[in-house]
């Protein structure tokens, strides 16, 4: 079921459906793996904890960054104690999200544009998507009620539904209006549980460079989340993430 992708109309007619099984023999990793960010984060955290080269620090904020020809001094502040500390690193990787402090500290800006539209990402539990022919990942094609509907993991994981909504609403108004949109997207009388509902902006932006001296950017810090949840959520491909000691922040 998770190996299919479909384009459908808002009233459930199929425009096309494709099985990733066709990719077998054409590429090394033919199937996408749907995996919510929280699940991926837990996997990465577990690997870091098991690896003696890593030291994870939580509740720690970068407050300043200076570099010279041999490395980087990173000043961090501990949220609970308020104490600051300077860490010395050969390299620093800023993978600290769309509002990256590291990116700002090295003076790199994002070029591109932000859509003048408002998007809503919801997580849904307990709706019988299969019964209505939804595949693992679905585009609902419609000028107003378009949506991306996708599984975020195995059985019991929430489904992600992302859609557009009118501009200028407060977060409370978005949560009030979301069920009207979901009613159009989710056919039949079946109940569902809306467990998350967030408004977000979508950017088509990229850092002008991913490297300044000994400081590197990766992930959302370099490219904030792009629109297409198909590109954002479909699959971890061949991320043979090798790990090494950076003697400092990662």
């Amino acid at each position, binding site marked *: 079921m998770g190996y299919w992708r479909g*384009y459908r*109309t808002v009233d459930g*007619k199929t*425009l*096309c459906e*494709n099985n990733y099984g*066709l*990719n077998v023999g*054409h*590429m090394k*990793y033919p199937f*996408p793996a749907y995996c919510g*960010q929280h699940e*991926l984060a837990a996997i990465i955290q577990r*690997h870091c904890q098991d*690896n003696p080269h890593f030291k994870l620090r939580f509740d720690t904020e970068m407050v300043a960054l200076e570099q010279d020809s041999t490395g980087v001094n990173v000043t961090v502040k501990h949220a609970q104690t308020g104490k600051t500390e300077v860490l010395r690193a050969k*390299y620093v*990787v800023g*993978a600290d999200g769309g509002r990256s402090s590291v990116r700002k500290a090295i003076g790199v800006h994002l070029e591109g544009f932000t*859509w003048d539209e408002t998007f809503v990402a919801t997580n849904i539990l307990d709706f019988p998507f299969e019964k209505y022919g939804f595949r693992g990942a679905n*585009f*609902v*094609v*419609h*000028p107003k009620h378009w*949506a*991306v509907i996708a599984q975020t993991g195995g059985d019991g994981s929430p489904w992600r539904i992302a859609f*557009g909504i009118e501009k200028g609403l407060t977060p409370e108004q978005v949560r009030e209006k979301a069920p009207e949109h979901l009613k159009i997207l989710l056919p039949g009388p079946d109940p569902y549980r809306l467990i998350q509902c967030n408004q977000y902006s979508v950017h*088509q932006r*990229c850092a002008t*460079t*991913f*490297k300044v001296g000994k400081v*590197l950017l*990766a*992930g*959302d810090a*370099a*490219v904030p*989340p*792009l*629109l*297409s949840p*198909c*590109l*954002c*959520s*479909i*699959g*971890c*491909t*061949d*991320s*043979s*993430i*090798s*790990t*090494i*000691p*950076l003697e400092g922040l990662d």
Partner: protein
Amino acid sequence: MTTGITDAACLGDALVAVMQGIADDSLLQTYSDLRRKVFLDISNPRSIEAKRKAQSDPDNLSDADKEFYRKMNEDENFQIEGMKGSMVLQTLLDIPQPKLENGSKEVNGEIAGM
């Protein structure tokens, strides 16, 4: 998120090679250049196109979109190309195989235990 994972894979490979002295520091600039190129050439235009397709009117499709759906239903090679999606976002650097850390095992060409 997928572009971020593929950034991490590429950057991890580059940092391993630089820290182990297999490659010089310029490989990190190569990382930056190649990953920006993936955004400019692949993820950005595809993402914009996916949005346009999702927001089109299925009762009034352009000829190009009709052709897209026809091929996605009938043309196997087109379907395979169309489904590569995230699989084309990864960047493989041209570097020698990094030395494995103690305790890591290589299984079927994949590094395990890292």
